């Protein structure tokens, strides 16, 4: 019987190739997109699971009155390990230091992490070369990641190789290479021990005190110990050590590392977007499948009738349909796997810089998932036609008549509605995301983003930085003399690259006011002038009234939060009582120093006068209007003469800023492609449905034409219904889409408006596409010679 059913299935699908292809392709793509979603969510839910003692790992968080921070005080971990025996292991991670590392001619500026000895026993990174045991014991030993290893050493083994630090006679010895799993919250390129770090950069010892918060801290609790059990001991440590001693109200919170990713890092928006897309595509495909199966089933009513006459029972009929839909589902699943692994997954991975792979899934889970998908799509789509078929009347079957025509008409059109609701939501989503990105990119940055060129000093490339500094001085002076260039300035920050360096300040004399956290940056004398940032009151660092020592320029947000109306006469104190006092000499407008999806923070610019110009990160150059290309040519020329070995790297300010919007560009690409896919699948379904509807109305069309209807009138008649259904879909889609989009826009500090025309154009697009699809069928039906259809059977 199974053989008989399968035989019928293959012969029937062979005869109805287009229907079969629409089914299989649609379902396959739906399944493939669903798999991407599953893989992403699975990856997200199993974040950090490779750590064997995950349930006992905690990340330390400091909770202040003003907020929380996972940057912790440097002396906290040693103190905790000393006073709290329940803490069996722990490590800090210090990621603020960079060094030039080289192997032969291969040289890069690298972010070197310093960690405690416990690092490789707290986290269970799988070692590709070497092993975790005592791997950082030796001074100057270092562990690197696999991509880092191939960057320096290619395919040759890294173990035992040496990397030169700067230009000195100091070398790291590679003692291990680890494969950091894609879903690890902790990642690094190269780590070495705190001792090594302390020798390389003695300054880090200064920032490991009871005030600064430069390190991340992780601890491992004894099995069965809950964080609440050591709460008192933690409070004690705060009381005895945190400044001001005895009065500090900070709480130390232990975030379970197993929950850390979901709570702090996870990209929920992307998950929601992916879920909407995957479910949308899958439902469109399922709707198509059910629709086409019904259409196909109806065209086979005679077959069912004949079978019933020859003794087939309801169960035989249901079984046959289920076999067919399960077989289709199975082929779709295979196709889906191919589409998934050959197209969707690689594209998704490269778009979002991820390394998702099916192999990362537990094989039982994967098996159950695929089986579940198959059974679900197969049974679900077989359900409607089997009910329809098995209930139909025998005699009517034999005459090829379909029972309950009216009802199935609505059922079929309701599926068109569902599909177009999804399509319209996706189209308007695409438009809105695009508009928000354009809005952010196009928003007035309040600095000159057309004429400012930023050159990297690339200080790490130079062996003798004093010589390099003198050369840099020459370049800057020569540039300033050029008629093409209006201003030149050295700086530590440029828009798009402001350090995450915060400290608390309060206005002098008003100690009742809560502290304000200012984001600090250090700039040269002509920074505001060179970048074209407007001064609202006071002046920048280019006018020297008395001395620039201990002066600060605030942005408008900082001024507003402090309640200052003008800059003059205001004095801020940094940190705690008795801290350094700064005179506010100027207030600048709120310019875009980071992506405008984030709210503007209160900024403080401090003047710095570096003796060695190589201590700056950037040289900024403002050209005269329209003279950028001449300015760049000049810069290149001077640079290549003085620094023949260190090629110039430069960029425009908005390029750096636009990096903040890359994630949204990716999301936009994702939605755009899937919208197209959704529309395509919907149209395929609609096409098949339309051809069926037309076939059933040929007689009506014939009669109308004999009675004088023109082709145009027939076309209008046939298309009217589809317009009606799409209109209904539009009405349903608008509120859904409006709600989803306003939710999404909530996440942006500066957002575009949701105009009515976004929805209108999405609806119009859907309508035009649908009509184009349907009209071909309508036209074919309308031009048929009535004699042919009215001939009696």
């Amino acid at each position, binding site marked *: *019987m199974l053989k*008989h059913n399968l*035989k*019928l299935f293959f*012969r*029937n699908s062979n*005869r109805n190739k287009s229907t079969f292809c629409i089914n299989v392709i649609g379902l396959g793509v739906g399944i493939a997109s669903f798999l991407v979603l599953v893989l992403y969510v699975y990856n997200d839910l199993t974040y950090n699971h490779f750590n064997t003692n995950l349930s006992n790992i905690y990340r330390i968080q400091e909770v202040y009155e003003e907020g929380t921070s996972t940057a912790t005080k440097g002396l906290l971990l040693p103190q905790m390990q000393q006073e709290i025996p329940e803490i069996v292991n722990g490590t800090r991670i210090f990621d603020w230091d960079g060094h030039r590392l080289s192997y032969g001619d291969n040289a890069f500026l690298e972010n070197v992490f310093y960690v405690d000895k416990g690092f490789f026993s707290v986290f269970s990174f799988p070692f590709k070369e070497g092993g975790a045991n005592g791997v950082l014991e030796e001074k100057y030993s270092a562990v690197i990641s696999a991509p880092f290893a191939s960057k320096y050493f290619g395919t040759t083994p890294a173990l035992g190789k040496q990397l030169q630090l700067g230009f000195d006679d100091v070398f790291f010895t590679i003692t291990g290479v680890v494969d950091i799993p894609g879903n690890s919250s902790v990642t690094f390129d190269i780590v070495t021990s705190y001792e090594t770090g302390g020798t390389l950069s003695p300054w880090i010892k200064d920032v490991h005190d009871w005030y600064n918060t430069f390190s991340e801290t992780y601890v491992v609790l004894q099995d069965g110990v809950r964080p609440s059990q050591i709460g008192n001991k933690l409070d004690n440590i705060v009381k005895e050590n945190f400044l001001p001693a005895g009065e500090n109200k900070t709480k130390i919170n232990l975030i379970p590392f197993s929950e850390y990713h979901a709570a702090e890092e996870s990209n929920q928006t992307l998950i929601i977007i992916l879920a909407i897309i995957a479910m949308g595509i899958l439902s469109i495909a399922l709707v198509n499948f059910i629709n086409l199966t019904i259409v196909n089933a109806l065209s086979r009513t*005679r*077959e069912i*009738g*004949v*079978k019933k*006459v*020859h*003794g*087939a*029972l309801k169960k*035989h009929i249901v079984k046959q349909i289920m076999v067919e839909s399960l077989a289709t589902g199975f082929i779709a699943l295979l196709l889906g796997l191919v589409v998934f692994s050959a197209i969707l997954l690689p594209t998704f991975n490269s778009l979002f810089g991820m390394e998702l792979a099916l192999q990362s899934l537990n094989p039982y889970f994967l098996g159950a998932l695929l089986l579940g998908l198959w059974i679900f799509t197969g049974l679900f789509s077989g359900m409607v036609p089997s009910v329809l078929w098995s209930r139909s009347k*025998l*005699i009517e079957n*034999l005459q090829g008549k379909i029972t309950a025509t009216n009802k199935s008409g609505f059922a079929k059109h309701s599926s068109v509605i569902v599909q177009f609701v999804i399509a319209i939501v996706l189209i308007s989503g695409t438009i809105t995301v695009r508009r928000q990105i354009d809005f952010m990119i196009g928003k007035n940055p309040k600095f000159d983003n057309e004429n400012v060129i930023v050159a990297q000093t690339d200080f790490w490339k130079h062996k003798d930085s004093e010589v390099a500094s003198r050369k840099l001085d020459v370049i800057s002076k020569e540039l300033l003399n050029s008629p093409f260039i209006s201003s030149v300035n050295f700086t530590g920050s440029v828009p798009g690259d402001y350090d995450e360096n915060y400290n608390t300040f309060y206005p002098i004399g008003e100690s009742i006011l809560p502290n304000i956290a200012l984001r600090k940056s250090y700039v040269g004398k002509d920074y505001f002038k060179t970048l074209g940032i407007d001064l609202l009151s006071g002046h920048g660092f280019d006018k020297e009234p008395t001395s620039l020592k201990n002066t600060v320029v605030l942005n408008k947000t900082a001024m507003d939060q402090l309640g200052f109306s003008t800059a003059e006469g205001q004095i801020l104190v940094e940190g705690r009582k008795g801290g350094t006092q700064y005179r506010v000499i100027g207030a600048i407008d709120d310019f875009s120093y980071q992506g405008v999806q984030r709210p503007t923070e209160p900024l403080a610019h401090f003047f710095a006068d570096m003796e060695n110009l190589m201590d700056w990160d950037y040289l900024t150059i403002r050209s005269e209007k329209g003279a950028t290309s001449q300015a760049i040519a000049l810069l290149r020329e001077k640079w290549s003469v003085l620094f023949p070995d260190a090629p110039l790297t430069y960029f425009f300010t908005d390029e750096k800023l636009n990096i903040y919007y890359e994630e949204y560009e990716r999301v936009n690409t994702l939605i755009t492609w899937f919208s197209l896919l959704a529309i395509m699948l919907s149209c395929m379904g609609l096409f098949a449905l339309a051809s069926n509807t037309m076939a059933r109305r040929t007689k009506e069309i014939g009669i109308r034409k004999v009675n004088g209807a023109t082709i145009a009138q027939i076309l209008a008649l046939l298309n009217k219904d589809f317009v009606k259904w799409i209109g209904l879909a539009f009405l349903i889609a608008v509120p859904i889409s409006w709600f989803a989009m306003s939710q999404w826009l909530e996440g942006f500090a500066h957002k575009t408006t949701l105009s009515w025309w976004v929805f209108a154009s999405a609806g119009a697009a859907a309508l035009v596409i649908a009509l184009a699809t349907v009209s071909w069928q309508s036209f074919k039906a309308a031009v048929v010679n009535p004699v042919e259809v009215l001939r009696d059977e």
Partner: protein
Amino acid sequence: MLLQLKNIFKWVNSGGQRIFLLKDINLQVEEGEFISVMGPSGSGKSTLLNVIGMLDTFDEGEYHFLDESVHTLKEKHRSNLYKEYIGFVFQSYHLLDDLKVYENLEMPLLYKKFKGSERRAMVADMLDRFNIVGKKDLFPAQLSGGQQQLVGVARALIANPKLILADEPTGNLNSQQSEEIMQLFKRLNEEDGVTIIQVTHSEKNAAYGSRVINLLDGRMV
């Protein structure tokens, strides 16, 4: 006696009026009879055949088939009954397009719990008897109308029914093909003792039978 219809009425309600499809039909059929049902279009011939074949219900009257009272039976029993004793032949053959000739013959057996080997033997026997062994791997579309109806008859006979119901079996055939099918019916009736009830428009075809029933507006005349 094979079957008996007593005072059978069948009607539909249309526009507040009761329209009779069958009106007071009384008919007794003995085993081995070959009956032709005749009458103009719309006189109720096919309806009568469907009622006899238990494919359709009736509204009033009694129907006895062998020892069973069909009018009191539940649908499931009814279908078991016709499955076992009745074979159908249709004007448009109703062969399944996606099945080859031998698969079409095998199809009814699939629903009657025959083993694979038994099915193959019965199909082979039937192919042999109808002289269509050479055509067993062809699809219906590859056969002429007459050959298709031959397969249709073979399929109706494969489970050894007592009664063959044929609704205008030669309606789509030319005169020579018609002749062959009627000869076949006659042989089946005379040599194998199969009871046949056929609906026909043709006096010539009706002449093959042993008895003619004339219908007009749902009544026997």
